[in-house]
C-alpha cells in the first residue's frame, strides 16, 4: 500500500485516540447532570483500570509477539499487595504502590526468565502455568481470606491524605495513570528498544544474528508489562475495596487477551477501545439478560471474523502491518 494510505490511517488512529481520552476526561462533567453518577464513574473507572492492564499486555503481545496467558496474575499481585499490607495496617500508597511494583517486577523477572526461552504455544502454556500457580497460592493464603478474599476498609491514602476517597477524584487518578501508561508505552514502542522488540516478533533469528540479546529484550518488556498490570491491580483493589484470588484466574487472563484482540492487536489505543467495548457490552448485556454470555460469545466470534485487526479496523484506524 502507498504511504498516503498509511498516513491517513495513522491520522484516523490519532483522532480516535485523542477523542477517547477527551471523552474520558470530560465525562464526569456530563455525568454530574445524569442520574446514577456514581454508577457511571465507577463503571468507567473499572474500564480504565482494565485498559491499563490491556495496554501493558499489548506491549508484549502486539509488539513482542508474546501471548501471555497469565497476565492477570500481575493484576492479582498488585491487588494483594494492597490487601496484605492493609491487613497489617499499612494503607499509604507511597508504600503500597512501590511494594506492588516490586513484587510484580520480581515475579515477572523470575517467571519471565524461564518463559521467554520458549516460543509460541509453549509460551502460552508456561505463562498459563505460572498464572495458575499465583492463583492457587492466593487461595491458600488462609490468614488473608483464602478462597474468599478479603475486604478493605477504605482506599489507600497518599502521604496520609485520603486523596481518592470520593469516586470523582479516584476516577481522575485512574484517568491520569491510564494516560501516562498509554504515553509511556507509546514512547517505548517507538524507541530503539521498541524497534528491537518489534523485530524479535517478526524474525527472532535475524534479530539475534544482528547482535541483539533477544531473550533479554523480551524479558525487559515482560517485566515492564508485568509492573504496569500490577499498577492496574493496585487500582482495582482500591476501586472495589475487595481482594480476591479470582483476579488472577486464567479466565481473567483470557479476557485481557480478548480485549486486546477485540480492539486491534499492536496498536495500544486498540487495547483501550477493546477494554471499553468488552466491559460495556458485558455490562449492558448482563443488565438485560441473565445468560448474557450466550450472546456475548458469538458476538466476539463475529467481531474477530469480520473485523480482522479489531474494532479499530472497522473504524478505519490503523492496524498492525
Amino acid at each position: 500500500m502507498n504511504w498516503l494510505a498509511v498516513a491517513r490511517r495513522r491520522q484516523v488512529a490519532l483522532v480516535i485516540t485523542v477523542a477517547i481520552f477527551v471523552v474520558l476526561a470530560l465525562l464526569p462533567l456530563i455525568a454530574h447532570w445524569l442520574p446514577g453518577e456514581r454508577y457511571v464513574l465507577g463503571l468507567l473507572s473499572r474500564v480504565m483500570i482494565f485498559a491499563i492492564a490491556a495496554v501493558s499486555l499489548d506491549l508484549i503481545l502486539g509488539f513482542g509477539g508474546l501471548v501471555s496467558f497469565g497476565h492477570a496474575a500481575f493484576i492479582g499481585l498488585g491487588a494483594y499487595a494492597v490487601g496484605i499490607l492493609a491487613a497489617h495496617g499499612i494503607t499509604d500508597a507511597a508504600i503500597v504502590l512501590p511494594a506492588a511494583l516490586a513484587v510484580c517486577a520480581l515475579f515477572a523477572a523470575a517467571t519471565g526468565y524461564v518463559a521467554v526461552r520458549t516460543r509460541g504455544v509453549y509460551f502460552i502454556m508456561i505463562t498459563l502455568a505460572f498464572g495458575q500457580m499465583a492463583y492457587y497460592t492466593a487461595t491458600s493464603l488462609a490468614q488473608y481470606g483464602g478462597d474468599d478474599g478479603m475486604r478493605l476498609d477504605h482506599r489507600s491514602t497518599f502521604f496520609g491524605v485520603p486523596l481518592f476517597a470520593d469516586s470523582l477524584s479516584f476516577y481522575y487518578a485512574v484517568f491520569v495513570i491510564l494516560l501516562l501508561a498509554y504515553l509511556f508505552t507509546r514512547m517505548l514502542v517507538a524507541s530503539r528498544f521498541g524497534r528491537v522488540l518489534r523485530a524479535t516478533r517478526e524474525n527472532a533469528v535475524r534479530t539475534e544474528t544482528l547482535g541483539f540479546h533477544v531473550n533479554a529484550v523480551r524479558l525487559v518488556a515482560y517485566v515492564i508489562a508485568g509492573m504496569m498490570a500490577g499498577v492496574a491491580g493496585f487500582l482495582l483493589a482500591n476501586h472495589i475495596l475487595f481482594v480476591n484470588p479470582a483476579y488472577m484466574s486464567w479466565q481473567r487472563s483470557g479476557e485481557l487477551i480478548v480485549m486486546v484482540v477485540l480492539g486491534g492487536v499492536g496498536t495500544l489505543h486498540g487495547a483501550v477501545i477493546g477494554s471499553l467495548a468488552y466491559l460495556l457490552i458485558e455490562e449492558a448485556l448482563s443488565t438485560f439478560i441473565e445468560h448474557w454470555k450466550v450472546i456475548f460469545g458469538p458476538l466476539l466470534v463475529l467481531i474477530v471474523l469480520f473485523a480482522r485487526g479489531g474494532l479499530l479496523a472497522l473504524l478505519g484506524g490503523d492496524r498492525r502491518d
Partner: protein
Amino acid sequence: MTEALLQLENLHKHFGGLAVTDGVTLSVSPGEVHAIIGPNGAGKTTLLNEITGLLSVDAGKILFEGREITQMPAHERTRAGIARTFQITSIIPSFTVHENAMLAVQANVRSTFDVWRSAAFDADIAATAHDVLEQVGLSARAHLPARELSHGEKRALELAVAIALQPKLVLLDEPAAGTGRGETERLVDTLTALKKRFTIVLVEHDMRAVFALADRISVLVYGRVIASGTPNEIRNNEAVRNAYLGEEAA
C-alpha cells in the same frame, strides 16, 4: 604467515546418525574471500550456522581472531564481528527497507535499552543506514516496506544489513540464490567492491560468481572438506571434478 581470522578445528556435528559436519578443519585469512562449495546437502549452511552460533557443535573448536568462541551465544558472536546473510531471505518484513538497515546500524551502537527517545528521529543512525543502502543500490526503495521488494532487492537488503554491522567477517549464504543472470552480475560487482573491506566466507552454487570472487575455495562433501586451495587448484583437482564440478559439466 598472518594469523587466521577464523579457524575451525576438527568440527563435528551429528543429527541422529547423520554426520552433517564430519571433522571440518578450515582457516580463513584476513582479507580473503573464502568460498565454500559443494553439492546440496553437503552441510554448507550447517557450517555457517555453527560459525554464527545458531547451532552448537558436538566436538571441535571455533576460533575467531585467535579467541575461542565455540560456546559463545549467537548475539555475542555478531558483536565480536561476525555478520551473516541467510539463504532464505531473512529480513523484518513489516519494517521499511530503511528501518531494516537502521536496526542493523543500531545493533552496532549498542544502546538497545534506550527507551526514552524516539528511534525514528535518530539522525546519525538514519544517515549511516542510508549510506549502506546506497552501497547496494537500494536507496531509491528506502521507504517501502521490506516485504514489497522484489526477490533480488531483498537479497540486496540482506547484504546491506550485514554491511551495516561493520563486521570483520561476513558469511554469505548463497547470495545469488534465485536471482536472475543480470542480478547475479550486479551482485558480483557489489561483492567485488566489498571484498576490499571485509573478509568474506561465501557459500554459493553459482560457479561463475565463485570463480570470479574467491581467493580460496574449500569443497565440502557429506560434511567433509575434500579439497581446499586456490581456484586454479580446485578447478584441476581430480576428486573435486568427480564429486562436484563433473556433475555440472555432465
